[in-house]
């Protein structure tokens, strides 16, 4: 027991360097586990972007392209889906619900999505969570708009504000639908999905603002006022894509095939989960790089520890000669030094792990709010335990390096105690 106490006292004697070493290891462990947490959190958030939707239907294209423009609002559709096709799909008995999506306009760089009120009930994210309104509600009037939280925050909008939608999707647009302004009817809670960056209007409104346009430009002298447009038939001729929910998941493949083989028009139907996985596989290489970097940080911290132990070796040399003279076997002395490395690493790993959980606990609400990233606070998983154990083992082994050197020196020193 006294030997353990002496080992601790010896460490205490060098407490500043020892603490710094523990801190360095702790920070590196926090980083390693933290990166892992963010990684799984990001993957989960990514996979949680859309749920509850069985199929996404769009004009024939690759599945990634369709997913990107319909869910992530990235890029553009290659073609439209006619209203007739949409209705044909809607009429199928297996289809429980279908929500149209119409894209192509924007507001200060945020995409405008034309859809219907079903969108707010059927679009699910984070394992079936529905979107909720922070203020206001879904559109009631033709020219009502529901905006995502990022839109509201960035542009400082509140319910009742008037906004003008621009034609096209650039952040600076030269052609605006200024004759038909919208009124903000509701602002959605933060979801951590592309919804936050979307301005939602009704499908009819999309039709209304384009009714006097031809070939992507207003026809001079033919403008129809916002009041007149209300009396017209605003059934769209085409939409960009549609989200489909089925009565039974078992029918998914059947309906997918049916849509892909649709005779009237070339269409594609994708399963969002599969496409998301595909997309993650694409962007997921970055996570490997992150892990590699954090592993290197751990290695650096351990190197720092070895350096710290090595620099104090002269003092330890004296210690070892004294211990040898009172009967400590070389194995005892070697063990003491190696234990020091292991002990420092263990302390670092414990401090780092606990620190991460405290940090997670404190920062989680903020991260969720600002980045829409939900980080799980759960005990380390099996593979994380293995990682932590490996770090401690590496610490013991790293501690052996100076131990072996000190041991050699002590053998060479024999009975003399050098300064």
């Amino acid at each position, binding site marked *: 027991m006294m030997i353990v106490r002496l080992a601790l006292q010896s460490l205490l*004697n060098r407490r500043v360097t020892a603490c710094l070493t523990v801190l360095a290891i702790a920070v590196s462990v926090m980083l390693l586990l933290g990166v892992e947490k963010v990684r799984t959190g990001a993957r989960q958030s990514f996979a949680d972007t859309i749920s509850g939707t069985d199929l996404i239907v769009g004009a024939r294209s690759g599945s990634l392209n369709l997913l990107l423009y319909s869910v992530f609002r990235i890029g553009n559709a290659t073609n439209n889906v006619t209203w007739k096709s949409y209705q044909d799909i809607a009429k199928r008995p297996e289809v429980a619900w279908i929500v149209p999506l119409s894209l192509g306009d924007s507001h200060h760089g945020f995409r405008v999505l034309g859809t219907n009120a079903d969108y707010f009930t059927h679009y699910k994210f984070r394992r079936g969570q529905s979107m909720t309104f922070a203020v206001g509600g879904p559109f009631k009037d033709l020219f009502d708009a529901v905006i995502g939280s990022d839109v509201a925050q960035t542009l400082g909008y509140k319910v009742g504000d008037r906004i003008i939608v621009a034609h096209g999707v650039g952040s600076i647009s030269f052609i605006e639908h200024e004759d038909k302004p919208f009124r903000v009817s509701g602002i959605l809670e933060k979801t951590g999905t592309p919804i936050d960056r979307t301005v939602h209007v009704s499908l009819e409104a999309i039709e209304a603002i384009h009714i006097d346009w031809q070939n992507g430009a207003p026809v001079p002298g033919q403008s129809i006022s916002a009041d007149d447009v209300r009396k017209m038939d605003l059934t769209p001729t085409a939409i960009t894509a549609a989200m489909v929910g089925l009565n039974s998941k078992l029918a998914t493949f059947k309906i997918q095939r049916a849509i892909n083989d649709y005779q009237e028009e070339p269409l594609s139907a994708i399963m969002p989960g599969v496409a998301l996985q595909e997309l993650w596989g694409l962007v997921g290489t970055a996570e490997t790089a992150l892990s590699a970097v954090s592993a290197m940080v751990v290695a650096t911290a351990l190197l720092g520890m070895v350096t710290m132990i090595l620099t104090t070796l002269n003092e330890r040399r*004296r210690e070892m000669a*004294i211990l040898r003279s009172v*009967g400590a076997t*070389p194995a005892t002395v070697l063990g003491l030094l190696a234990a020091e490395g292991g002990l420092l690493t263990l302390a670092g790993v414990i401090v780092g792990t606990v620190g991460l959980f405290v940090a997670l606990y404190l920062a989680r609400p903020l991260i969720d709010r600002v980045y829409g990233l939900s980080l799980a606070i759960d005990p380390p998983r099996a593979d994380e335990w293995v990682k932590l154990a490996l770090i401690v083992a590496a610490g013991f082994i790293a501690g052996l390096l100076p131990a072996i050197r000190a041991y050699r020196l002590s053998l060479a020193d*024999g*009975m*003399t*105690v050098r300064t």
Partner: protein
Amino acid sequence: MTAPVGSAREGVRPPDAVSFTDVRYSWPGSSPFTIAIAEFALARGEKLLLLGPSGSGKSTFLSLLAGIVAPDSGRVDVLGTDMAALSGAARDRFRVEHFGIIFQMFNLLPYASLIDNVLLPLRFSRTRRDRALSEGSLEDVAVRLLEALGLDKTVIATVRAASLSVGQQQRVAAARALIGAPQIIVADEPTSALDRNVEGVFLKLLFAQSTTAGASVIMVSHDEGLAPYFDRVVRLDDIATSTRGALT
């Protein structure tokens, strides 16, 4: 043989505390130092001064004596035990059971208390621990020894050995060597860092305690002025031949 141990004089003569026979040893390494000792003996209870200039192999001699290294050839007997026959770990155990060792300086673990420093050998030797325990609690025994070696209570209560003067540190080292009554006290120029009058006081106190414990003392030094304190003086040059440098 001087300084006979009275009771054992007749009948079977007890083995010497230490005897060297035709011992030869080389330090490994690029510039080997070789020492050869034909014959050397230390009687029980004897106080012996081994004189030699620095670099003459005194430390090597002590390393052989205390079993830190094993001779390449020949025999080192300590209390009737052939050190060469013991394994490394057994020599370590043997050392703490039978030797008290005092270095020239830096004897103490600087961060530990005086008491912990003194009690250190007892953690490795059950025999010495039991012997000390027979005189009282370990702490009391340590304090009594330190007091007998001329340290007062306020000094003994010092938390960190590093804050002591060199003279005080050597006394603590002596107490550590003596605790649990090992048979042989080995000292490597323990007084070289002390001034003359402190030196005399230190040696007298050390010898008083070792006589009480019935221990032999062997001290190496280059200082002939210490001779009067000892039963016998041996010059290392007379008993050993040493060669230094590459043997090609």
